[in-house]
């Protein structure tokens, strides 16, 4: 337990100490919220879909969580490059514990980030419609955070230099985000896009957040929760396995 705690604490300390990372990771969601929210708002309204900020805010919260979570997972590449990873890998501690500690740390940071973005979106005019559901919204945030930290860990375990980082951002994070329904409704999409979106785990996270915060869900909250739990469990297992196989 102590080992998991110290690894968790390390992730938190690193996050809190890097001001640039905090500002950068809050600036981006803010920009999306303002630019897209106010830019597309009128069109969205005209199409009879209601208030776009209401629709968009849960998507942007999910975005800030997956970006932060993926980054925490991928930090393994940094730790490998700067050598710190060796220190943990030769310790008499199971790699599963190391992976769990890191993942919980990364996920905690991501959830904190999501909460801050939620608060910011309140200033931008977002109003959750169902206050008692907020704890469940938090559960969705935690699941998405753990899922994407684990995905980041799994991918980073296979890469041994920083070159891979940009590839991941371009070919994993961006498509997952854009094809998740974070920015647009999933109803009435072309068939191909709709299928891809329904295979994207983030779609269920976004949907769950929207279902809990504004009472509109495409798949339904029960489906969202079940899918997310299953996928998260699978990726934590895959991430742990790949992490345990790292060689230096």
């Amino acid at each position, binding site marked *: 337990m*102590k*080992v998991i705690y*110290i690894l968790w604490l*390390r992730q938190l*300390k*690193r996050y809190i*100490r*890097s001001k640039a990372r905090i500002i950068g990771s809050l600036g981006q969601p803010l920009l999306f919220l303002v630019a897209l929210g106010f830019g597309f708002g009128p069109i969205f309204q005209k199409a009879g879909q209601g208030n776009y900020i209401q629709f968009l805010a849960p998507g942007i919260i999910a975005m800030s969580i997956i970006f932060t979570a993926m980054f925490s997972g991928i930090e393994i590449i940094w730790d490998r490059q*700067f*050598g*710190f*990873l*060796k*220190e*943990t*890998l*030769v*310790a*008499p*501690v*199971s790699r599963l514990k190391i992976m769990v500690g890191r993942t919980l740390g990364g996920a905690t940071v991501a959830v904190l980030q999501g909460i801050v973005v939620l608060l910011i979106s309140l200033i931008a005019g977002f109003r959750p419609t169902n206050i008692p559901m907020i704890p469940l919204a938090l559960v969705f945030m935690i699941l998405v955070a753990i899922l994407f930290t684990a995905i980041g860990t799994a991918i980073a375990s296979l890469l041994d230099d920083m070159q891979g980082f940009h590839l991941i951002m371009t070919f994993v994070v961006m498509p997952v985000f854009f094809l998740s329904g974070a920015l647009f409704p999933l109803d009435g999409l072309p068939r191909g896009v709709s299928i891809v979106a329904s295979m994207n785990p983030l779609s269920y996270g976004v949907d769950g957040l929207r279902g809990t915060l504004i009472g509109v869900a495409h798949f339904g909250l029960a489906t969202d929760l079940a899918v997310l739990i299953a996928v998260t469990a699978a990726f934590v297992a895959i991430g742990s396995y790949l992490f345990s196989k790292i*060689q*230096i």
Partner: protein
Amino acid sequence: MDKEIITVKDLTKTFNGLTAVDHISFSVQKTEIFGFLGPNGAGKSTTIKMLTTLLQPTSGSMLMNGHDPAEDPHKVRQTFGIVFQDPSLDDELTAYENMEFHCILYNVPKTIRRKRIEQLLKIVELWDRRKDLVKKFSGGMKRRLEIARGLLHHPKILFLDEPTLGLDPQTRNLIWLHIKELNKKEGITVFFTTHYMEEAERVAQRIAIIDHGRILTQGTPKQLKEKTRSQSLEDAFIKLTGRAIREEEATSTDRMRMRRRLFRR
């Protein structure tokens, strides 16, 4: 009676066609201080990585305190400590936090944790800087912190990969004094590599010389000198490998010859 704590037989590691370690065999006795010497690229660090579970060997067998690092890494990780050749600190943590983190990973009891951290940080003259982030340290300070951290827990086997490279003579002496004391008092076996020949001659009880992934010879410093009819270990080394150990002393033709030899394999 089983007095060997490290046993290596025909150990080999190839990286995409380059043979870094080539069928080496040696053994280290319990409580011995064993020096592993060789020029740059000889395969020292690769051997240490295989023994410390960080790399899977291509072939051959190893035993560390009775367990195989390739088969039973978790058991082996409970028997050793290591100071790596390359940096392995967390730059975003303070010196003290790095030390504390290590104590928790290695389960150093809370009651002795603080005292030991203080003692070691004082030996490497970093106690006054304990609250500074490591990223603000100079290269030598980071190196000293690495060594201090590696000595926090008392394992059965301690690996030191070029521990004192780049440090001033006074610090080197202090560190070796402490290591020798650990070796004597706690019976810790020490496996180290170094580029300082006089250091090896002074501290090592037994030495193996490795070049191009092969062990050329092994024995006590005295035996090696007698065998090669040399005055110093430095001379013995040059006679055995055909060149000086330190990179800065190797001439460019030396390096070219080395590359060509590696290439031919």
